[in-house]
């Protein structure tokens, strides 16, 4: 059961390799006045790599039964976690097209009804508050212009 920790350590090593590679190849290491743009990223990558290796050795040496701390969530949990991540990512991607109001409304419906198991009325009321309500309050009183729909037919509807 070292596998998960080893994978995590390898992720860090990959990240450190990327840092070192990118800064060595694409950035100036040293300038006449001192460290260049690539100096710190390179050494940070090197340090992270070193520490990552130490950690990898640590976790690989351990006996199996001390690994209990890391428990993967049940399948349902993984689905919920991924669905939240995907839906927030979708909001960020669609906000500029659908407009804040519609994107947020759909997101809230998802969060409250499907994940939160709320009744349809609670869901719709809160979703409207968080989308349409917030849009107008922020625009009018807080000088934050949330994105309007850039798709023309939605823009015509005032979204």
């Amino acid at each position, binding site marked *: 059961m070292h596998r998960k920790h080893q994978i995590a350590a390898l992720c860090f090593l990959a990240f450190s390799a990327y840092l070192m590679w990118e800064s060595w190849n694409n950035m100036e290491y040293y300038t006449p006045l001192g460290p260049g743009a690539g100096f710190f990223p390179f050494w940070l990558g090197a340090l992270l790599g070193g520490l990552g290796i130490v950690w990898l050795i640590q976790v690989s040496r351990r006996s199996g039964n001390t690994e209990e701390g890391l428990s993967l969530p049940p399948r349902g949990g993984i689905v919920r976690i991924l669905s939240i991540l995907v839906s927030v990512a979708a909001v960020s991607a669609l906000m500029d097209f659908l407009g804040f109001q519609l994107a947020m409304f759909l997101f809230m419906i998802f969060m409250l009804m499907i994940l*939160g198991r709320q009744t349809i009325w609670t869901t719709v009321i809160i979703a409207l508050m968080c989308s349409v309500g917030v849009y107008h309050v922020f625009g009018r009183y807080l000088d934050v212009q949330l994105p309007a729909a850039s798709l023309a037919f939605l823009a015509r509807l005032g979204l």
Partner: protein
Amino acid sequence: MDVIQNLLMGFSIALTAQNLLLAFIGSLLGTLIGVLPGIGPAAGCAMLIPLTFQMGPTGAIIMLTSLFYGTQYGGTVTSVLMNVPGEASSAITCLDGYAMAKQGRAGVALSIAAIGSFIGGTFATIALVFAAGPLTRWALEFGPVEFFALIMLGISMLTGLAGKSVIKALMMGIFGLALAMIGIDPIRGAPRFTFGRVELMDGIGFVPVIMGLFGLAEILENAERPFAQMVLARMSTLIPTRQDIRDSVGPILRGSFIGTALGLVPGITNSASSFLAYVAEKKASKHPELFGTGMIAGVAGPETANNAHANGALIPLFTLGIPSSPTIAVIMGAFMMHGLIPGPLLFKEHADVAWGVIASFYVGNVILLILNLPLIGIWVQILKIPYGILCGIIMAFMILGAYSVSNSAFDVAVMTLFGLVGYLLRKFDFPLAPVVLTLILGPLMERSLRQSLEISQGSFGIFFSSPIAAVLLVLAVLFLIAPAFKFFRKGKVVMSGDAEAA
């Protein structure tokens, strides 16, 4: 004494009904803006400036300054209740504040934060009145060289944030520094690690990152189980116990000092102040291992420090006419729009305004306290909302906050990514505070190093020609070495400790 007389005159101005009302409005709006993530104090002040055109200069500035320190308190509310920092300066409060909320002690955390804020703000104001001269001379000692040394000292503190494993803390510190490298480099001015995205040129957004690491990651962790099963702790009490108060005295005093001192140095943000106050508490505590599990000191120290910082940062404005943060630059703009130039001459030419505003700081801090203690009862009601609904609202809140920092949907995507990263890091028991610490200090470090070397034209000797810098750097090295000694002395113990943790 002259000062006392001037101050009394100031109070006679600050205590007029109109100015009291303005201070109240400012504090209230500030608290609300603080609660809203994304909209920071600078944007809040800028929003109000058009409103102040019609007012007299004293009233206008009283309102803006009270809004400014109001936000420092408001940011705490969401940190404690939702694990979502309303302001960057309250990010660290998430660690112990939210843990306290989970134990049903949210009211206590917020009360102590309010009291700490009050004391911190008042302390800094007293410093402004009685010690502005010497403090200003001290602040002027901080050129790029000393600044760099100070930042290095701050970064070296990250070992103090270690949980059970120093290695993991160091890895996270380096991870934060690596994130801080993103953006236009301070050496040649070319973009670095931006993946061709214009949005990353100014560096990765601090607020979206911490919202992801703390707020979103927490929600993801909760989502492992169906929301219906989530039961938040019952609210038991609002009033701190005697023990809470006893535990908070030290942190509040240290926080006041740290916040005021760092507030004086232009360029240090108040999130750095609150972070260093947290580290200081952890170092000072007899039970550093309990930090992150709901230690009152972990709330009291940083929350005091950020308010002390907010008020302390006004000292260079009054004595030197120098705006040490973006928000203060806006306040300085307000001074100038009313035909006043902040600086030493202000006291001579417009003594009534200068002392009126200073007196209003005391008044404002009292108002803030009176305003906030009863509000706590209302804020904590939020926790009574069933998690199925609350979770959705928190998510909406975070999306809105991440977006409104720079009106960019890209930041929402950044938050999402760091939500996932934060969730995974928590699963592997990595401490998150070091990431945030180095993410705050990293950009300052590289920039001030470059500036120092530009002054010396490449000679590193400059860091030893300044006594302050030399002392700070030596301290930084000691901080870094100390845990390494421990590590070697009882290396095996640390290792097995780590194994238990994982």
